[in-house]
């Protein structure tokens, strides 16, 4: 049995006071505890990975296996981990700059392949660690340090993109709703396939969105949304287009069961346990 104490490292937490990341950290630790207790997943089977940015520090704070990767590359990193050993439970943490800017190609392909990992985006809609530039989900006109006159781009909607790319589990959480976020993470890990959670994570310092979310966020579950309905999922996703107005739905937008990438690619094989093949016959055929 794991306790919260075992799950913490000695690393000093350097997020700003009030940062939304604390909510994700707490929800993650609670999820790991529960998954250990309820599903019997041994501590050593958890592997976290992260990109670079404020969000990414999370792996330093949690005392389980981790790969602190590079900016934008969470998806291939966790894909490699999962494919080498499909028995591991792999959770990726990425920023919005990380996942939607630098790394969007990989994210789309992870979804397309339906690889059985969980991908959590800490979407503060700003580059935090590099001190406040606009990202793909910042609202048009966002005045960041690279766009002091306001961003000249409309945000895209990551939920729509991920749904189009073929993701089989698409959800949105909010850091201030810790319990619900924990439930989402657990559902994502339990989902057999690629699970995507976009977490609304206010950046206290560069883009304080608490007030807006506190007023506008509601839960799809309360609305009786059917996550098996792709059309409804798309409609709900499109309800809010990442501006600074309108209602913002959270919860599981879409969930469907499909064969996973590792099943299709590996079948029964587990690469870390494979023995070298035998050359004799192959070489013979070359004479």
């Amino acid at each position, binding site marked *: 049995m794991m306790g919260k104490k075992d799950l913490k*490292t*000695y*690393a000093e937490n350097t997020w700003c006071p009030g940062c939304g990341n604390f909510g994700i950290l707490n929800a993650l630790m609670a999820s790991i505890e529960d998954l250990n207790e309820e599903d019997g997943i*041994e501590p*050593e*089977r958890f*592997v976290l*990975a992260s990109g*670079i940015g404020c969000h990414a*520090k999370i*792996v*330093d704070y949690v*005392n*389980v*296996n*981790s*790969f*602190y*990767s*590079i900016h934008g*590359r969470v*998806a*291939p*990193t*966790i*894909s*490699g*981990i*999962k*494919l*080498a*050993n499909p*028995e*591991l439970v792999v959770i990726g943490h990425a920023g919005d700059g990380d996942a939607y800017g630098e790394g969007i*190609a*990989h994210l789309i*392909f992870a979804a397309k392949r339906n690889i059985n990992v969980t991908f959590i985006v800490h979407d503060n809609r700003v580059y935090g660690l590099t001190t406040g530039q606009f990202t793909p989900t910042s609202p048009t006109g966002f005045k960041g340090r690279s766009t002091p006159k306001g961003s000249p781009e409309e945000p895209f909607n990551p939920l729509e993109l991920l749904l189009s790319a073929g993701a089989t589990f698409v959800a949105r959480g909010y850091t201030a709703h810790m319990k619900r976020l924990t439930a989402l993470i657990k559902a994502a890990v339990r989902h057999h396939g690629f699970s995507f959670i976009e977490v609304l994570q206010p950046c206290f310092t560069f883009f304080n969105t608490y007030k807006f979310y506190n007023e506008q966020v509601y839960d799809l579950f309360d609305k009786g949304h059917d996550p098996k309905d792709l059309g409804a999922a798309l409609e709900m996703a499109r309800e809010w287009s990442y501006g600074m107005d309108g209602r913002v739905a959270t919860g599981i937008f879409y969930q469907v069961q499909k064969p996973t990438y590792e099943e299709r*690619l*590996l079948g029964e*094989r587990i*690469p*870390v346990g*494979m*023995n*070298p*093949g*035998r*050359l004799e*016959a*192959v*070489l*013979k*055929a*070359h*004479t």
Partner: protein
Amino acid sequence: MKELSILMGGQAGDGIRQAGNTVARLLNRLGYRIFFYDDYPSLIRGGHNFSIVRAADKKIRAHKENVDLILAMNQETVKRHRWRLKAGGEVIFDSGKVETQGIGLPFKEILREHQGAPIMRNTAAIGALAGHLGIDWEVVAEVIRDTIARSKETNLKIARTAFENTVDSGQKIDRAGAPAVPLLTGNEAIAIGAVKAGLNMYIAYPMTPASSILHYLASHEDDLNVVTIHPENEIGVALMALGAAYTGARVMVGTSGGGFALMTEAVSLAGQAEIPLVFVECQRAGPSTGVPTYTMQADLSFVLHSGHGEFLRVLMAPGDVEEAFYLTALALNLAWKFQIPAFILSDKHLSESTSSFEGDPAEIGPQPPISWDGSGEYKRYRQTEDGISPLAFPGTRDAVVKVTSYEHDEHGITTEEPDEITRMQGKRLKKLEKLKSELGRQELVKVYGNPRAERALICWGSTKGACIEVAEELDLRVIQPLLLEPFPMNEMVKALSGVKTLIDVEVNATGQLSSLLATKGIKADRKVLRYDGRPFTIDSLKNDLKEVL
């Protein structure tokens, strides 16, 4: 030396490479050693392809400009290559397509007779060739059965008709006596070398001339127990590979210069996080897209210095199929033992030319890395005397395995403290000592030709092939470093002893090996460089050397 060279030419789509392969196999079965060069432009149909199969009764690693026989599938082949024909040589051709002197056969009619597909014209050519050389039909039939996958019987009939309709030249080719050995391309040798050293996964995005490693391993996944993956791009390749290696899988990736450029960020990550990974870089003519199906040795400096910051690496440059096999296996074992990135630098000429493979795979196996013994608290970056921290992988009980791209402490937690930074950088670089002593047990610099000659050619990679034969003829020494980083200084000094004139021979425009040698205080007196996308042939090198000797 008894030898024979045969050129096959035609359009892309005529199956010229496949025909060359069959001819090479024929001569292999007759006990000859083979070198087989394939020249093709970057297109799928049309254009002009040609192959030169050279066979001899001793090991060879290069081809010559002149040939004994030409198999011409089209007029272009005769136009371009007739000059190559030696006195007494012959052109065997499709008389329906080609007008020339020599042995013409109506391929189209032969195909029609047996209801063969157009691609089977080259089966007819091979039959004619075998008839001309007086090769026993049994050998021909066996090779056709072994090499042609589809419509074996039709092919056999076509070959037989052509065989019988070709007058035996009387210059019957003798059996050379040696047993047949596997014919491998450099890329195939790289692939099986890695497999022998325990490769679990090969991950790559297609790029000429590296793609055939992917194709080969993908088509042998089950025989060779390897998982192959073709991801979205080269960045994905490298990061997937690092994720998998962290998890305990032995992984290799392969690409050419432009794709490798996209992996350089990951190279640096491998250095910082101490994750073992083998990168195969098959060079082609650059810069940029360049001349993608032609050869060059111009990425040495780039790969040698790839990745920002400073970290240990191993870089090896095989020059023939045996070296491709052994060095790739060594690279994988060293990468794992020292937890570092290792590089195999090949080029189109090595990767896609085919040679007789005389290595002994039984010698090679996977060497286990230094592993955590399970006692005490696991620290991924434990400070040890030799700088190597014992490995454990996710899934190991009681081990929390944390790797990171940041500078870090022994547990793998980020640090920004000056002393810790110095200590950790020191730890990583310290591994060099042990690496050097480990490498000391290998042959790192080869010497060919006259080992006491005062005039020496120095070369790397596939260029050795032409150098060796020229040196034998001109009584020169040949020096070939197999390892380029860490540089094998002692072995090089030994190899250079007594040399008065050192001539650098490279397939590039600036002489990158000579720049590397200069950093070690070794000065090449002259450079012989070729950079038109073509490898040195024995003749072209001899010719170029005339000017500097």
